[in-house]
């Protein structure tokens, strides 16, 4: 075990969290690294401001090669997850900014990090426990209720490719199957307690600035709305505004039932709202179901993603069942809807491609009992669950026609097939440096209906106010990519930047926070250059895995099939958007960073890494 200072050069080039994590991932792996092997580094990285007064600064990143999106079960792809809660800040107070975990233990272990010290402990007694029990046991053993824990559940232990980390009741580091990377290392948990001071450049001014900004934020309507109903708010607006998923609307004949998943339906179960450390928004419900079949269900959420994933996408419109399944996934340490595999499996069954002989039981839309059993079967790799636990690699064990039920973007499977109506959202998903990810660069404010003047004031150029328009949308995606890269590298939350509101903090506020915290006075172009560097390193990593070119920024064939006659025109328009997008990045017309760009960003060395 070695400890070293984070070199100042890395700070200057990448700030922290996702930035430094990606640099480490690029330098510590190559194209042959097995994501479930000992050489895949599990990298925990705090933002430069994580744990300090700021804008949702409970956030940090966990990064490794993903076992879910590679070209084979043994090859990797870029994997990254941004997570909140309290464990990141606690790591800062323990004196660490990054952890790089390599190798593989022969027995289950967990890390105990406390004030400049790291210890490896036996976790045999924790193996098999769910994420909530694991955290409770570790806290009890530590004798300190303020010990913070991030851990995997049975899904991670069993190398389920949709496994995530959980900290607290529901904060998840998901989306890249990183729970199974920890499972392969037999790393059950990281427990953290820190009581060290953190030095900042201008402490008094920082606290004043934080108080003033927090007050300003908490007076804004979008913050109040999120603090009242949380992300489930999106259910209604997405439906009536037409930018949601088709599944949300409820399938034919069940539209009224789907209303049962609206945000307001959660209020009878809400005990109040909770937040990550120091956040002005309290965006998640603490829930308790007091009566009926699910009586005694306590937890956090469900978020919009779970209402759709465990609810509408499975035609399960029972909000109590969805809430229970949300908690079940969190306890198992697995993404809701097993990352889309549940709806995929039911669709295959209903279409007759697979039958009881494969699945062992009928799989039906809206059958909450089957959904519950199948969720557990996947996490424990029982029966047909073992097939689905392989994520997209389940296709190797399914009829060839099953492939038509998934779309692929840069190796990531997506069960979405509907034609999306928000141009900028589609472009951001297609070009995202984390394959198919919806938040890497989503220009969330595009759906607010801002007039052209307000958009020009924000972006400094014309952007079509129509969500279906094309002009300026490539710029919008590029602009948000850069902003979010800085947001992540600082450890701030994207919900507290220009995502839900044009009035949220962005570069000017980040500059001031950085100055008060570190004494650095970085210009906005300098911050954007750092963001460009981070995004370009990620593009190089995608290239290493064969998915970093123009061909990889296009819509899945199945989307185009569904689009029918509209496809040709849209396809051509998206090609034009890609031209503009690559120019903004100073990449070539094939979407590959040019030597000049690498030189300008000071990352020429990374381009020559093996496999790049």
């Amino acid at each position: 075990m070695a400890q070293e200072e984070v070199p100042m050069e890395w700070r200057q080039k990448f700030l922290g969290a996702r930035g430094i994590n990606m640099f480490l991932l690029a330098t510590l792996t190559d194209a042959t690294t097995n994501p479930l092997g000992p050489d895949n580094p599990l990298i925990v990285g705090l933002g430069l401001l994580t744990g300090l007064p700021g804008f949702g600064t409970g956030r940090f990143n966990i990064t490794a090669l993903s076992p879910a999106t590679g070209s084979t079960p043994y090859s990797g792809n870029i994997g990254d997850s941004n997570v909140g809660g309290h464990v990141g800040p606690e790591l800062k107070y323990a004196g660490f900014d990054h952890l790089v975990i390599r190798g593989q233990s022969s027995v289950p272990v967990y890390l105990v990090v406390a004030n400049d010290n790291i210890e490896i402990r036996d976790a045999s007694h924790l193996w098999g426990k769910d994420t909530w029990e694991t955290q409770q046991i570790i806290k009890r053993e530590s004798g300190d209720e303020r010990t913070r824990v991030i851990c995997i559940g049975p899904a991670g232990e069993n190398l389920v490719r949709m496994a995530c980390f959980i900290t607290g009741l529901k904060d998840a580091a998901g989306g890249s199957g990183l729970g199974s990377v920890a499972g392969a290392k037999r790393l059950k948990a990281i427990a953290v307690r820190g009581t060290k001071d953190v030095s900042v450049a201008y402490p008094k001014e920082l606290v004043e600035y934080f108080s003033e900004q927090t007050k300003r934020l908490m007076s804004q309507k979008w913050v109040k709305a999120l603090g009242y109903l949380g992300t489930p708010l999106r259910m209604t607006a997405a439906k009536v505004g037409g930018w949601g998923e088709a599944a949300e609307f409820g399938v034919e004949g069940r539209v009224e039932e789907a209303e049962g998943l609206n945000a307001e339906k959660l209020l009878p179960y809400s005990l109040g709202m909770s937040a990550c450390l120091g956040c002005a928004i309290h965006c998640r419900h603490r829930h308790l179901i007091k009566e009926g079949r699910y009586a005694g269900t306590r937890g956090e959420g469900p978020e919009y993603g779970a209402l759709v994933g465990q609810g509408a996408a499975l035609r399960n419109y029972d909000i109590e069942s969805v809430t229970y399944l949300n908690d079940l996934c969190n306890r198992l340490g697995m993404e809701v809807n097993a990352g889309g595999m549940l709806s995929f499996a039911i669709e295959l069954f209903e279409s007759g491609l697979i039958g009881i002989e494969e699945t062992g039981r009928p799989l039906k839309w809206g059958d909450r009992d089957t959904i519950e059993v199948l969720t557990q079967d996947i996490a424990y790799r029982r029966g047909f669950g073992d097939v689905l636990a392989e994520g997209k690699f389940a296709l190797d064990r399914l009829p060839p026609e099953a492939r038509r039920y998934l779309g692929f973007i840069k190796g990531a499977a997506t069960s979405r097939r509907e034609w999306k109506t928000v141009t900028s959202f589609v472009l951001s998903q297609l070009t995202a440096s984390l394959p198919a990810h919806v938040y890497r660069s989503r220009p969330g404010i595009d759906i607010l209906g801002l007039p052209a003047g307000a958009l020009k004031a924000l972006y400094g150029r014309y952007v079509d106010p129509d969500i279906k328009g094309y002009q300026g949308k490539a710029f919008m995606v590029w602009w948000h990519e850069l902003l979010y890269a800085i947001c992540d590298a600082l450890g701030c939350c994207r919900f507290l930047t220009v995502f839900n509101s044009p009035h949220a903090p962005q570069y000017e506020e980040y500059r001031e926070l950085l100055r008060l915290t570190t004494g650095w006075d970085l210009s906005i172009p300098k911050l954007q250059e750092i963001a460009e560097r981070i995004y370009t390193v990620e593009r190089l990593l995608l290239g290493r895995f064969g998915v970093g070119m123009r061909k990889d920024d296009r819509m899945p064939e199945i989307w185009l099939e569904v689009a029918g006659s509209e496809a040709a025109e849209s396809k051509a328009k998206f090609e034009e958007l890609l031209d503009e997008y690559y120019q903004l990045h100073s990449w070539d017309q094939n979407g590959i960073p040019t030597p000049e760009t690498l030189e300008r960003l000071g990352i020429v060395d990374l381009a020559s890494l093996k496999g790049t």
Partner: protein
Amino acid sequence: MFHEALKEMAITIKVFGMLRSILGEASLVLDPPPATVHQLLNELSVRYGERVREELLDEGGNLDYAYGIFVAGEKLNNLSAKIEDGVEVVIASIIAGGDHSY
């Protein structure tokens, strides 16, 4: 006959998000119907108090971005936008996040 025709002119307002907690109602019928968003806000403010206008408008007196006022899937972005008779109007808080990736 005349009465039935009038009834068809009424508009239904469905309310979601923060505004529902202010109005204390999930839906209401306005008859006679307002012809514009401006008139709609006036009518709601008369019935439920000035807080409605404060909630739906920003400091500059324009529609606040935190809300969407929709008719048949179309978002009405300014106070002078027309509202046809007999339609259903949805007023909802807007956020962009909470999505899943698969």
